[in-house]
């Protein structure tokens, strides 16, 4: 999902940085607040951050004949909300742009917006919609993680289509072309990521249900039901 360094005109780099920076500031502020209120959430932050690290380094072949990587941002969006997720993603993306030439410092803003902000925001919205319904927790986690992953590549396509509208058909036709590359490749990866992260969530619930309850991620009753169900 990365936009490569140099492939985005500087005007667009500035635009995406301007969008990304306030979100990162909210994230850092929230992170301080959460950690100050309860130090015991730190291990959970480590786990959800660890998944972003691992999954975004795994480039998996997809059915379309090209490779892409999952994002792993869904778990973090559920546990800590989209803004803290943006901070985690910024760290991962900074590492990749400094040492791996994947993305770059000028396009970092655009990449943070797609992987760290829009994806997790969509995931978080889905989570808020489904949280208070009677839907099984694991199905909620599956949908959130898969959609956060999908919308990351949709946003990348959008960013590129805005910068490079096609000569005929303009923005729409180039959006469709980029979607064909990024989003279609991502579909099978998003499904697998959703299932695997739902499984991970089961283990977190099994080991530390109290942290999730304290953070208000799911109610005590929902967690109890989930523990007895699976």
């Amino acid at each position, binding site marked *: *999902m*990365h*936009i*490569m*360094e*140099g*492939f985005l005109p*500087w005007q667009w780099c500035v635009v995406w940085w301007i969008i990304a920076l306030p979100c990162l500031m909210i994230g850092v502020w929230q992170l301080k607040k959460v950690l100050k209120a309860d130090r015991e959430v730190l*291990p959970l932050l*480590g*786990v959800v*951050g*660890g*998944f*972003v*690290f*691992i999954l*975004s*380094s795994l*480039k*998996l*072949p*997809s*059915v*379309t*004949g*090209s*490779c*892409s990587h999952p994002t792993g941002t869904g778990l973090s969006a559920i546990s800590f909300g989209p803004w803290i997720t943006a901070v985690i993603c910024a760290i*991962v993306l900074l590492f*990749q742009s400094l*040492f*791996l*030439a*994947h993305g*770059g*410092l*000028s396009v970092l803003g655009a990449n943070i917006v797609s992987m760290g902000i829009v994806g997790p925001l969509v995931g978080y919205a889905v989570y808020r919609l489904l949280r208070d319904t009677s839907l099984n927790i694991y199905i909620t986690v599956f949908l959130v993680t898969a959609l956060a992953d999908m919308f990351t*590549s949709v946003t*990348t396509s959008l960013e*590129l289509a805005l910068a*490079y509208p*096609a*000569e005929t058909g303009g923005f729409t036709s180039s959006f469709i*072309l*980029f979607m064909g*590359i*990024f989003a279609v*490749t*991502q579909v*099978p990866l998003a*499904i*697998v990521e959703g*299932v*695997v992260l*739902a*499984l991970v969530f089961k283990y977190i619930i099994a*080991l*530390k249900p109290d942290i999730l309850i304290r953070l208000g991620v799911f109610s005590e009753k929902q967690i109890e039901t989930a523990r007895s169900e*699976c």
Partner: protein
Amino acid sequence: MAYKYRLEILAGIAIIAFCALFLYTSTTMSGAEFAGSDNVGSGLIAELSGKPVDSFTPLIPQYEPPSGEIESCLFALQAAFGGILIGGVFGFWLGPARRKPVE
């Protein structure tokens, strides 16, 4: 028993199906190079803007891993860092839960 582990079974099925799908497409699809979608995307940018791919130079100079091996080494480091974090925390949580009470 199977009811208790149904999520594990589901995840297993999803991963196996994903691998099978990859094996199927990689043998039947001609022209599937399994290049990174980032590179394919860069190709499309070049096509749309009418400029060759090489003409896109970094706006801010950046370090490039000198070879594919070093790149994969750094990727493995990134994954290892995540793995250590996850393994460490799960161990940290699991330890007290499994500790036997002192008699």
